């Protein structure tokens, strides 16, 4: 029993040895003056910056506004992508009309339209939300569309034989059948959401994490820049964890996710 516990502790310790060693060496290098603090501040300096921006409320305020933009864009772009994916997946005429155009637009890197977006919206909120929405629309659209299309036709036939209405067929057969694919799309979209927001905020914003880091760069506050990067990493990780929970809840029936649950 205690041997197993010891084994687990040593497993965890092994995972942390390298990152901790890097942190310590980095700290020592910065303190000894071997590293230029202007270019790469010590971990302790970042911790101090974290405490400072936390206590004056600027970190919370900027994180909040960034999260708000991300979620608004996700909600708008995600809804449009989901709606189009369902529509084109279920209804051939819509697919013929829309799909090839959407595939064409998908191949335009959405960050390439930033100059246009600045012309349209200036640096107002809409610019960031619009960019995020465009960015998340396509992965959600594609995966929803493919999910709906790949639902086993045998199950749909079974549903018809057993007298399901169109609505019941959609809610009980098609939507749950497409759900694994839709959630993969959501996960992709979350990655794109943060990426888009970082770029949009560093280019045109007067608040948010991206603005905070760009502003800090102007004043050579490298510790704040580093802090901003860490916050982005944490937000990304948080979003990923939330989707994984969502997957485990929504796909509890799926053998793959049952195994993952058993391990965890």
């Amino acid at each position, binding site marked *: 029993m205690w041997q197993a516990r010891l084994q687990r502790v040593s497993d965890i310790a092994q995972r942390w040895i390298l990152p901790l060693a890097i942190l310590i060496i980095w700290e020592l290098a910065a303190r000894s003056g071997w590293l230029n603090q202007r270019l790469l501040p010590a971990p302790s300096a970042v911790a101090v910056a974290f405490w400072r921006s936390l206590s004056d409320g600027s970190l919370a305020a900027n994180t909040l506004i960034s999260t708000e933009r991300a979620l608004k864009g996700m909600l708008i772009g995600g809804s449009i992508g989901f709606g189009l994916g369902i529509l084109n997946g279920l209804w051939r005429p819509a697919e013929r009309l829309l799909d090839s155009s959407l595939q064409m637009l998908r191949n335009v890197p959405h960050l390439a339209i930033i100059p246009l977006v600045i012309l349209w919206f200036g640096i107002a909120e809409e610019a960031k939300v619009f960019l995020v929405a465009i960015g998340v629309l396509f992965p959600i659209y594609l995966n929803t569309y493919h999910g709906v299309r790949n639902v086993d036709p045998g199950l749909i036939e*079974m549903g018809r034989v057993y007298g399901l209405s169109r609505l019941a067929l959609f809610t009980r057969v098609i939507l749950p059948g497409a759900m694994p694919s839709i959630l993969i799309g959501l996960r992709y979209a979350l990655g794109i959401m943060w990426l888009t927001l970082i770029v949009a905020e560093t280019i045109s914003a007067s608040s948010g994490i991206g603005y905070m880091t760009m502003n800090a760069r102007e004043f050579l506050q490298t510790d704040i820049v580093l802090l901003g990067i860490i916050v982005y990493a944490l937000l990304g990780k948080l979003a990923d964890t939330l989707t994984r929970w969502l997957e485990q809840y929504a796909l509890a029936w799926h053998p793959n996710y049952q195994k993952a649950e058993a391990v965890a």
Partner: protein
Amino acid sequence: MNRMALADHPKVWPEDDAVGPQEFSAQKHDLPIRLDGVSKNFGQRQVLLPLDLIIPAGQFVAVIGRSGCGKTTLLRLIAGLERASSGAVFVGESRVAGLQRRVRLLFQDARLLNWQSVLRNVGIARGHGWQERALKALREVNLLDRAKDWPSVLSGGQKQRVSLARALVSEPDILLLDEPFGALDALTRLEMHELLTRIWLENRFTTVLITHDVSEAVALADRVIVLRDGGIALDIPINLPRASRSLGDAATGRLQAEILKHV
């Protein structure tokens, strides 16, 4: 193997199972099926030649033939999943023009919704009191204890039992079976035969079983129809008491040999 399995369950069938295929008592769930000059072609390919067939109410018919002989098409025509190229299919008095509530179909694969519990799969049509009816159907197929499980943890035989329960929930007049036991191992298949026989004897719905297995056809049906090249090559009654239809039985063996000649 067959005889051993039967010896283990000597009381699978009621004592008075000397009922011949001709004497069908009027039970509650049965409707006759009639095909009048029904043919089917997909484009240029003629799958079924025009054929006439009457299946009396409550009869258990097995249709056998090689793959591609049109047996599944015949079943789908009765189910209303396909439209006849000529002629007409009648269920009871009404002409089949689409899917019917009185007809239930078991597929080759169980076709369960993996994202719903066994109980919700069985009660897929919902409706008034569906949970009680689904539980009752699960009890009939001996799967009451799996009601809350996901279908993915069930074995192949259990999945087909769930899909049988799903068909039973709506108390159909006609049960159509499209090789539902084809993918099961031999022992599980024997269990399914016993289960299906018991349920059929209790309900007496008109039943059409598609199979490529002659021994399965002879073990289960009142009447065997052999389809070959889109037409009926043999139409033969099975007048043996169900309890004596085992592998070693001489009369059963003769019938099987006779049918095999026509497949």
